[in-house]
């Protein structure tokens, strides 16, 4: 076994070079002033102060969280029924459906998002159709709606696949058992299927919320040049403004927020268990 352990060294080196060192750099940048030589590092909390005292930044943060949350909720609401349908179909059809779900992911995300511009723009597909049937054209592109739509469209496969795999894993005799004990289809779903698929929903949330909250390509393309989410702010600080220290500080703030939200989700999952255990213990 010991000799096998050596095989991990390249990966450890890779992780060090590609993940740990950049993270350390970000932390370092976040806590230092601009223009430091390595020899004369000057530590400061100014970068964080700047963020929390500027209402514009806080509003952007709030908008980002709101959009990401909305995206996640919509992904659950739309994705769950689809996942359920796939999981309950025969294995041959199941493979086909899963292929169809993953098929768009073979195409570059940028290209797919550009396609939405064509569909949503003022003289795009939807508005042409609307005017064809005599309705007023609507402003669709460069709105919150367009951004959320783009995110749901891009991230929903992750949600569907997670929920589907947890549903497919479920022992089907449990459904028979619930039926047998007097539960109709709805009761069976609420009391057995849903609780047993929660782990899939939880990991789906993680996979959708995280990229949604830090996404900057989708808001840029579908929200327009002035549309700012926290991901765009960070991108700007690094690329346009050249304020690496401030950008790093915002990244760190985001990282902390994400960690907290993941912790809360995990807790929710656990407390559900704990709650049910307690209910049994009241006697």
């Amino acid at each position, binding site marked *: 076994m010991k000799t096998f352990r050596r095989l991990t060294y390249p990966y450890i080196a890779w992780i060090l070079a590609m993940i740990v060192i950049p993270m350390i750099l970000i932390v370092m940048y976040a806590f230092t002033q601009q223009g430091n030589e390595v020899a004369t590092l000057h530590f400061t909390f100014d970068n964080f102060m700047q963020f929390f005292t500027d209402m514009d930044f806080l509003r952007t943060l709030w908008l980002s969280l709101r959009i990401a949350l909305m995206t996640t909720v919509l992904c659950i609401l739309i994705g769950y029924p689809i996942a359920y349908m796939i999981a309950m179909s025969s294995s041959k059809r199941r493979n086909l459906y899963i292929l169809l779900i993953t098929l768009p992911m073979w195409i570059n995300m940028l290209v797919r998002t550009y396609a939405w511009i064509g569909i949503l723009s003022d003289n795009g597909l939807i508005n042409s159709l609307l005017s064809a049937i005599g309705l007023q054209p609507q402003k669709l592109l460069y709105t919150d709606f367009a951004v959320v739509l783009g995110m749901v469209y891009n991230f929903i496969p992750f949600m569907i696949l997670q929920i589907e795999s947890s549903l497919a894993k479920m022992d089907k005799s*449990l459904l*028979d058992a619930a039926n047998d004990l007097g539960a109709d289809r709805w009761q069976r779903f609420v009391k057995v299927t849903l609780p047993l698929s929660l782990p899939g929903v939880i990991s789906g949330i993680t996979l959708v919320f995280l990229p949604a909250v830090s996404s900057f390509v989708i808001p840029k393309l579908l929200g327009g040049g002035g549309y700012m989410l926290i991901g765009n702010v960070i991108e700007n600080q690094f690329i346009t403004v050249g304020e690496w220290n401030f950008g790093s500080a915002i990244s760190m703030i985001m990282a902390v927020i994400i960690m907290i939200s993941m912790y809360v989700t995990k807790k929710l999952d656990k407390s559900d268990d704990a709650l049910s255990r307690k209910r049994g213990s009241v006697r």
Partner: protein
Amino acid sequence: MEIKEQNKLIQFQNIVKDFDGQLVLKGISLDIYENEFVTLLGPSGCGKTTLLRILAGFLKQSEGNVIFDKEEISELPPYKRELNTVFQKYALFPHMNVYENIAFGLKIKKMSKDVIEQKVMKMLKLIGLEGFERRNVTLLSGGQQQRIAIARALVNEPKVLLLDEPLAALDLKLRKEMQYELKRIQQEVGITFIYVTHDQEEALTMSDKIVVMKDGEIQQVGSPIDIYNEPENRYVANFIGESNIISGIMKEDYQVCFDDMDFACVDFGFKKNEMVDVVIRPEDLDIVKEDEGKMNGVVKSVLFKGVHYEIMVETVPGTTVSVKMNVTREHDVASSDAKERISANNFYVDLADVKDLNDAEIIARADAQAWDPDNGDYLSISKIEYELKEEVGTYPVTFSTSSGTSVTTSIMVVEQKYVENKKKNEAISAFNFFKTADEIKESVAIDTDLKTWANAQGWKLSDESDVEIEDVEYDFDPDTIKEGVYQVTFSTKGRVFKIHTTDFVEEGSEVGLNFHPEDIHVMSKMGY
């Protein structure tokens, strides 16, 4: 009968079920009464679980009616049926603890909290798992999960409890324990249990009524004692317990004949001279002194089984034939310049087969070979000379290679020797044969090779179907054999009775077998 009629709880009326054209149930009609412990018994694929799932409502029959409590329930979904199921792998809800699992059905019925609590506690007591209510079901042992599955079903106070191979996943000791437990629970709650299993012992231990199924059909319905003592056919007799089954002829009422002997029995109602199957259970046969029983035989084997010995006694020996094996010296011939060697065996051939002999056949039968001794390469035999007549006699045959190296052997034309055994309706035949000592030493499966070399065959006199040659006897050691003539004896299997007894007898001793007329059970032959 009159009283039972009123208590008829479930009636299957001519249930047919096919899956994509494959008939799984071929018209099952069965009545189940109140408070009965009914077992559906049969091998996997016999349709027993399908029948159970039709009753539970998970499957719908293709034809026929299911009457439950005087009502046709075929259209009723499972959750509206007044019965509950214990599933094969328990199907406990992993996200609920013991208490919640058991309370599931009651909560669905929206019973009040304290009623639910009372009932669940009563159930936990019944299954002997008090204090387990908060436990995580996935961490319990198989036996405990099993009990919870039973409690979860019983707490709903169903009229019928369906159990689908509930003990299959448990180990032997636990399975025995749970058998008593289940029977106790059934008697305590006093409802009908319908139990599906492939384990005949389980069925005999627990049931009031056993339904033996095979290929989607019911073979027999009866109490365990009936089924064991009065099996209706060979299949049931074989499936339930161990048995000696012998083909026989029912001479007249109370008299059956098998192995050329007449025996008194208690069975009647068969046609005169009807072909029947006779069952004698191993424990009904007694070993007595030779000539003191109804049959005599030789003890073939004795196996210790714990409580008893399993003794095999052969009462009628098989049919035997003996042949001579001529073991010869290496008889290869070298060419004058020693560049080639050639060899062949003498062989016997049946008079009737002479006309079928050709060059290739003779080379094969004589095992004629030529080779280069330096590198072992085989050479072809280019010439073969012989003169054969369709008469008994010995004829020389000469094999030669293209360069003229030759060997001469003999073909012996004989009339095939075979032994008929009218009593057992069979015959056996074999030929004398020639082999070199090396060929015998090289054999890895000497019994099989001897059968092949001697072309030993057995067949039934009536229809010429094959009879297996069970025994090959010889008195040489294949590893050290030298030239000479040896006797090899082939025999078919004799009539062997299996006997369970606690008395030890020596292997090879001659004994008598005794039984009483009521120990014989005569059955009709299974329908063709």
